[in-house]
């Protein structure tokens, strides 16, 4: 047997036996970060099969397409059309594209949440150092971050386009800043409620349907009530109804906090209603987190 130091031809396979690991073992923070990044990547199909990339990537493209067209029109025909601001307000864009956002959340929440329960992979996570609360919070954070990226990407595109079209920098920055905070709140509300629904159903198809139905039905009902209340002069009813759909809720928060253009018939008016909207947002997010932690306390794996 020749040794490599003699410059002998390589390509000999040595059975080196079992090698123990003597390197570093990272703490819970690093483990949580790795889980977060993996979950975020998986939400867009990265690290999963080719087929599972189609839907999230397609939805991201569809989200960006209208923004791209709006930017194109703004840059090319700003003077022709006499435009001095974005054609569609930043805060209104998520409302307009809500079907795409709902489908994204509905399809990816089960991929992150139900999947581990259905295949009982949760056992393998629970048998590892991180606590179960860490697992739950990180999974929800991954879904929130993925949803935020989906909602925020077109807003950033519109912002950059607006600057190219010489819209005032300060005003646009302020508006897009508020809209990005709104996008984060919307992502948190959607992801947390969707995660909770997904955690209650092990079957993926059922979870997808349940989330879509929940988001679409609540919005439709809320929008109908708001329309009727606005027409009949009972705007207060519509304002209260607005807290029951994440889309109208977060739009209302943006109207109240950032004075953004409203996208509903009955935006919240007055401080009391504004605070109610803020509280409702907090309850939606924290309530879902609490319910998730309760749900996973029972999971034995």
């Amino acid at each position, binding site marked *: 047997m020749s040794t490599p130091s003699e410059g002998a031809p390589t390509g000999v396979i040595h059975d*080196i*036996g*079992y*090698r*123990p*690991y003597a*390197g*570093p*073992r*990272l*703490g*819970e923070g*690093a*483990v949580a970060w*790795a*889980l977060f990044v*993996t979950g975020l990547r998986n939400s867009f199909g990265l*690290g*999963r*099969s080719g087929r*599972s990339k189609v839907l999230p990537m397609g939805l991201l493209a569809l989200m960006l397409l209208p923004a791209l067209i709006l930017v194109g029109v703004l840059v090319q025909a700003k003077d022709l059309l006499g435009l001095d601001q974005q054609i569609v307000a930043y805060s209104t864009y998520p409302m307009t594209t809500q079907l795409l956002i709902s489908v994204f959340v509905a399809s990816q929440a089960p991929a992150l949440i139900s*999947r*581990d329960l259905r*295949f*009982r*992979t949760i*056992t*393998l*996570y*629970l*048998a*590892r*150092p*991180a*606590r179960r609360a860490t697992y739950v919070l990180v999974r929800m954070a991954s879904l929130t971050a993925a949803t935020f990226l989906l909602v925020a990407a077109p807003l950033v595109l519109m912002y950059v386009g607006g600057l190219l079209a010489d819209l005032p920098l300060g005003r646009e920055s302020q508006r897009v800043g508020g809209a990005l905070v709104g996008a984060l709140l919307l992502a948190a509300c959607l992801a947390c409620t969707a995660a909770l629904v997904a955690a209650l159903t092990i079957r993926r198809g059922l979870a997808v349907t349940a989330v879509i139905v929940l988001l679409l039905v609540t919005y439709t009902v809320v929008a109908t009530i708001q329309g009727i209340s606005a027409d009949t002069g009972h705007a207060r009813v519509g304002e209260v109804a607005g807290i029951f759909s994440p889309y109208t809720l977060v739009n209302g928060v943006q109207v109240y906090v950032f004075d953004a253009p409203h996208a509903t018939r009955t935006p919240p008016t007055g401080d009391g209603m504004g605070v109610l909207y803020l509280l409702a947002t907090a309850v939606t997010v924290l309530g879902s987190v609490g319910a998730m932690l309760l749900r996973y306390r029972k999971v*034995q*794996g």
Partner: protein
Amino acid sequence: MGVSVEDRAGPGSGHGAPVIRTGALTKTYPRVTALDGLTVDIGGGVTGLVGANGAGKSTLIKILLGLIPATSGTAQVLGYDVARDGGRIRSLVGYMPEHDCLPADVSASDLTVHLGQMSGLPYPAARERAADVLRHVGLAEERYRPIGGYSTGMKQRAKLAQALVHDPRLVLLDEPTNGLDPSSRDDMLALVRRIGTDFGIAVLVTSHLLGELERISDHVVVLDSGRLLRASATTEFLHRTGTLLVEVQGKPDADRLLGQALLDAGVRATPADGRMVEVELRDDATHDLVRDLAVDLGLGLVRMQERHHRIEDVFREGGAGSVHPV
């Protein structure tokens, strides 16, 4: 380079100190008592945990991992208390569940890398370790295909790989041979044996099939209805119940001659199938006695084979439900 057991024996995992120690460990559910005052010390090497379904094996493993709390009693793993240091224990212990736990849409390679990271390995180390352990468990090119298309044997190997990826000091293998055909079963058992010997990782392996554990375990712990039925070295088990099968040739009545000589020497001997003699195995001197008598009688000694009585006999002897003092 292989690494000896001694090199890896850190504090609490040496051959002296027990890897697992329980004291009056009890777990009661509203309707059933899963563990009933279990006190047992489990050392290094391969330990078989035997018991019928529902004897409390899986419950014990989950308590040891800190996944469910014990109702009363104490348990330490690698010197850490399960109630207080669950996280620390889980970073040093690998667990292979009894049930299916693998997602169908990822490859064994990706899953093992990910779970290595979940055990605290940095990404490059997790990749390297995953490649290593997948090779050790015998998953070749199929490791890059989605697990959904795996056979049961391949799935069991992938489950074993994820339990080993972070180089644990102890692995808890819950029914690793479940659902395997005979040849895969033998492969899996040989692999479990290698983990305990070549890899130098302490192994606690459960099975409801008693026969298969006696082949690979250094020690056997027998549970019955959540109680300790017996805990001792495998060799001890087998010797106490063992006999020696002897085949001799050279004269027409060779077996009878030898049998009579043995009886004269005060050793119980009975005729066995195929003109052989079954000799009660008292101690190592029995082998010498048989050899000497065969020589004295001018017989050719063809075969001398220990006939292991199975661990099942423990149940027959004691009768399920009775508890032997350890």
